[in-house]
């Protein structure tokens, strides 16, 4: 069971955390909503939850709550650039299908 960051992604997260001036790490999660059933959560972490699993990837702590973990286990979070647009991308092996825009999915 693990969720990982690419070197690129870890570096950006570390930068953002430093600029933000506080935060324990990065939270990955899912919640039910959207047109295909589930949507990703990507947030800074100020307080760890009781049921959080904590992974460490390239020195960045990644928090995933127990209920989300089955849906995103094995996910690798990458940081990429598409033209001028740049941001994080979820490479999630559990996805069966996703909505046209990819903002929500189901497993």
């Amino acid at each position, binding site marked *: 069971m693990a969720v990982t960051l690419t070197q690129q992604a870890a570096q950006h*997260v570390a930068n*953002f955390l430093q*600029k*933000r001036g506080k935060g324990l790490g*990065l*939270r990955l999660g899912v*919640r039910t*909503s*959207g*047109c295909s059933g589930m*949507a*990703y*959560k*990507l*947030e*800074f*972490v*100020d*307080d760890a939850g009781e049921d959080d699993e904590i992974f460490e990837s390239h020195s960045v702590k990644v928090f995933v709550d127990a209920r989300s973990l089955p849906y995103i286990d094995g996910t690798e979070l990458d940081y*990429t650039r*598409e*033209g*001028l*647009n*740049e*941001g*994080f*991308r*979820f490479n999630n092996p559990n996805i069966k299908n*996703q*909505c046209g*825009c*990819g*903002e*929500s999915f189901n497993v």
Partner: protein
Amino acid sequence: MPLFQISEPGESAAPHQHRLAVGIDLGTTNSLIATMKSGMAVVLNDVEGRPLLPSVVRYRADGAVEVGYAAMRWRAIDPRNTVASVKRFMGRGRQDIAHVESMPYDFVDAPGMVRVKTCAGEKSPVEISAEILNVARARAEAHLGGELVGAVITVPAYFDEAQRQATKDAAKLAGINVLRLLNEPTAAAIAYGLDNAAEGIYAVYDLGGGTFDISILKLSKGVFEVLATGGDSALGGDDFDQRIFCWALEEAGLSRLSPEDAQLIMTRAREAKEFLSHHEKAPITVKLGRRAAADHAGETPETTIDLTLDAETFTDISRNLVDKTLKAIKKSLRDAGLQAEDIKGVVMVGGATRMPQVQRAVAEFFGREPLNNLDPDKVVALGAAIQANLLVGNKTGDDWLLLDVIPLSLGLETMGGLVEKVIPRNSTIPSARAQEFTTFRDGQTAMSIHVLQGERELVSDCRSLARFELRGIPPMVAGAARIRITFQVDADGLLAVTAQEQTTGVEAHISVKPSYGLSDDEIAAMLKNSLAHAKDDALRRALKEEQVEAQRLIEATQAALKEDAHLLEAQEIAAIEAAVTRLQTHILGDNRRQIALAMDDLAFATQEFAHRRMDQSVKRALAGRKIDELSDLDDHLHTRTEKEARS
């Protein structure tokens, strides 16, 4: 597959809910676009990594348009079709533009706003600005990977109605939904997170390339209010270059220069200025006369100037420029009724604030180090981005309301060419105020409403914004009609005026989209005039008021004579008419005392007449009435009096 940004804890947007919004600093020289990414405001660079978008537009004969660096290259070669600093023309008529004759453009004086004749046809400043905003929008959408929901666009705090409306129109033309126009100093304060800081009063010192603005902001309960603005629209970093330029000519003993050489020295002067921001000494080395020698042999001998400018000398030669900014600060503080010690923090905006002597002077003046850790060129755009993000609802939190002020009072023309101020200068916006007015003549059924902007007491000294008419007022005696006039200034600083007659509800309305606006110089001049003429104006106002009152008395007397002359003896009529004539002769003069005395005489002469008329009307009213009806009449009279007292 979309690309994600990191949200604050608990604030992940639901799918399809994250709304793309940007802040745009639509500047005179350069524009910038910024947005919120992973909780941080960032400026969006172009494909080559450059943050600035030069506010330059070039029209080509084939109909194509170039914007930014691509257009800037053509400024020297194709100046007539390459428009720079279009912000100075927004919402202005030709006569409002300073140094219009020294500009390379072919201006056409179109109604409302000046236009520029280019090879692609006549272009209004709104269209030209729209080209810049179009490129800004395209850059934002390329970065964010989707269509923009809206943008916050910044404008100078002193921009008037016409200039704000023109900015909004330009955005609309560029397909941008304007969430709000935000004052530049307020944006800068937001960028520094002062909205989360302790309550208090802050100053924003904005020294750009060609303009200086000082704004005094008050923060209370997370809300900004602009207390005062001031500055100098002809003072900026370019003047510091000019000082170095003059110093260099003097040091090198040069007088006549070819334009090429002058340009060359000016460029070196600017480089020296920038160098001195981080060094103690700057070399100025220029080879002169090369072009001139080739073109007109012998006119200018080839020389080399090789000088070193040290920081101390630079501080000396630019001291009075810095002092000018301090003077403007003092004036704004005075406007706001404050002392330098009352200021809790100072925000530095504009590239010219990088100069160490500016930083030092400001720190000394306020007795505290200014905030300068953000890039002074970007800080306005960053603040606009933060505000845009809040306005589209990406951040759940307290509602944010930003208050700005009205730069010049808004009012109405009243009888005698006087201005009645409805919304005073420095009122916070959005703002709505109502006042009741009444009719001047018996049976008056229409009222002309003339909306004015300015500080002076007389219409002729203020600026006309709009005129409209309220018709359908039921005929009544003078002073009986109650017309409620409401002035409403929305969050973008645009004015709407409504006039409503209270008994019948007839209404007339106008949105003021004034034909063209005032330059900041004019605003400054108008404010200065109003102070200089305050006493003068007060006297003139008193005189005018006396004249209006006298005229009203004459008309009332004449109306009464026409109706009830039978109550008077022939010699009594003659006495009253003589008093009327005397008053009529004085009314045209400018001696307020004489008018007042003549009015007293007329009032005295008509005293007996008034008694007899009163008796007559009481007799008529009482004829055939019962006692209980009389008490009703009494009530009615009371209510009337209260209403009058209120209006």
